[in-house]
């Protein structure tokens, strides 16, 4: 009996959150213009998706995030493999990569604006850059920390260097690669949303949030924030599911 209810526990937290929000709005402590009731935000969300405005913004953000992520993966994975397979090359560039990885991507916007101009390209480029570094770092780490015993086993069974790379090292690095891709797409989403807010956008969830805030349409603002949150959560979940299918041996 207890166990069946346990499955509903996460739902309890969500309900508690909405109820608290609702009570707070009802109490009138906060100006209702700034803090609309949850049902108002829910209606705005519904309407936004029904009339297509939020739907369009949502898909624009998804498109930019996914495109950045694909570019980041295409760059980060091969470079990560190359880096991880040579400890000397890695030692040479580790500091630079770690430095840029630690640099807030938002600080790079002006630089990328100069190169790519005010438009789609800059948003994609910064998001791809940030995500690529995260992916690269994780892939390189995974490749470097591949189990020496497994490589030795393959070697004894007649595998050459390239074979060992393909048959062992790449598989070994897969769990860490997925960690990198998951962090990478989350970071890409963050950067895309910020870019949509401040870098001459006419659509996207980031632009919708800031626009709603400027015209004081608070229900819509919360609706757009919720949509962005759901997107982030969904992407993370999607990657976890893929990871569990692909890397079934992870952590075992």
């Amino acid at each position: 009996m207890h166990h069946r209810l346990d499955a509903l526990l996460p739902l309890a937290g969500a309900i508690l959150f909405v109820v608290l929000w609702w009570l707070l709005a009802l109490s009138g402590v906060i100006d209702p213009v700034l803090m609309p009731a949850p049902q108002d935000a829910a209606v705005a969300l519904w309407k936004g998706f029904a009339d297509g405005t939020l739907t369009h913004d949502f898909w624009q953000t998804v498109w930019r995030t996914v495109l950045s992520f694909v570019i980041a993966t295409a760059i980060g994975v091969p470079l990560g493999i190359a880096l991880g397979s040579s400890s000397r090359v890695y030692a040479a560039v580790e500091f630079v990569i770690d430095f840029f990885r630690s640099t807030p991507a938002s600080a790079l916007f002006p630089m990328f604006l100069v190169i790519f101009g005010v438009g789609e390209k800059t948003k994609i480029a910064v998001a791809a850059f940030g995500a690529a570094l995260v992916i690269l770092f994780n892939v390189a780490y995974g490749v470097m920390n591949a189990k020496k015993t497994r490589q030795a086993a393959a070697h004894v069974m007649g595998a050459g260097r390239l074979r060992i790379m393909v048959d062992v090292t790449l598989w070994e690095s897969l769990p860490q690669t997925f960690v990198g891709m998951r962090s990478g797409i989350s970071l890409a989403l963050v950067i895309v949303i910020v870019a949509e807010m401040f870098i001459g956008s006419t659509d996207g969830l980031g632009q919708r949030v800031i626009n709603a805030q400027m015209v004081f349409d608070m229900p819509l603002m919360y609706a757009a924030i919720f949509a962005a949150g759901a997107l982030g959560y969904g992407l993370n979940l999607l990657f976890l599911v893929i990871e569990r299918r692909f890397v079934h041996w992870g952590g075992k």
Partner: protein
Amino acid sequence: MTSHSPGSPHITIRGLTKAFAGVPLYDGFNLDFARGRITSIFGPNGCGKSTLINMIAGLMPMDGGQVLFDGKTLRETVIGYVFQNYRDALFPWKRAIDNIAYPLVRAGMDRAAIDARVDELVTSFDIGFDLKRYPYELSGGQQQLVSIMRALAPRPEVLFLDEPFSALDYEMTLSMRDKLQEVFHATGVTMILVSHDLEEAVYLADHVLMLTRRPTRIAEVIDFGAPRPRTSATLSEPGFVRAKAHALDVFQREVRRAP
């Protein structure tokens, strides 16, 4: 013909030299391993047992010297290797059966031949678990059994085993020793077994290679000729007790000897 008879030299090591950080481990080391016999290697911790078989198996470079298999180089020789840590040696992304087939795939065999060889191994090992499972779904003993089958799949001339049972519980160890004896009986493959358990080293071996502390030399090679299959009764026979007591003497003498 005579040069290929059981007991004749199979692996010859001449002038083997190896140092770590300038400190010699092996210095002009010579040794022959007998064909179609089980030779176990026993010696103090850190004396270089793993390093020795890793160099022979090509997993670690030698500083100098020569290792030949019937006069052939390692490249021209099919070998098998069973690692102590089966968890880190099997490929967890492959099913047990595909792990076993891996060296056959690497050898360029076609699918039908691979299937036939794997079937043959499965029959001779008489295993009681599903090879369609992934390694992490198997018990430790089952995983090490898969490792041994994988190592034997390409019909190696020599099988190296580095403390293959030390991560298993005692009950499992006993049954694995007998499994290994069966394999030896069925294949006659030359086996080099590193063991840190003196009882095991003597019980399984035709020859026990006793090593000194580093710089490592051969303290003595003890022959143990009890007939096979050996059983738990062997452990209490005078011949075994004597051989083991003698091995222990040699070991203690070597451990006490001032470096």
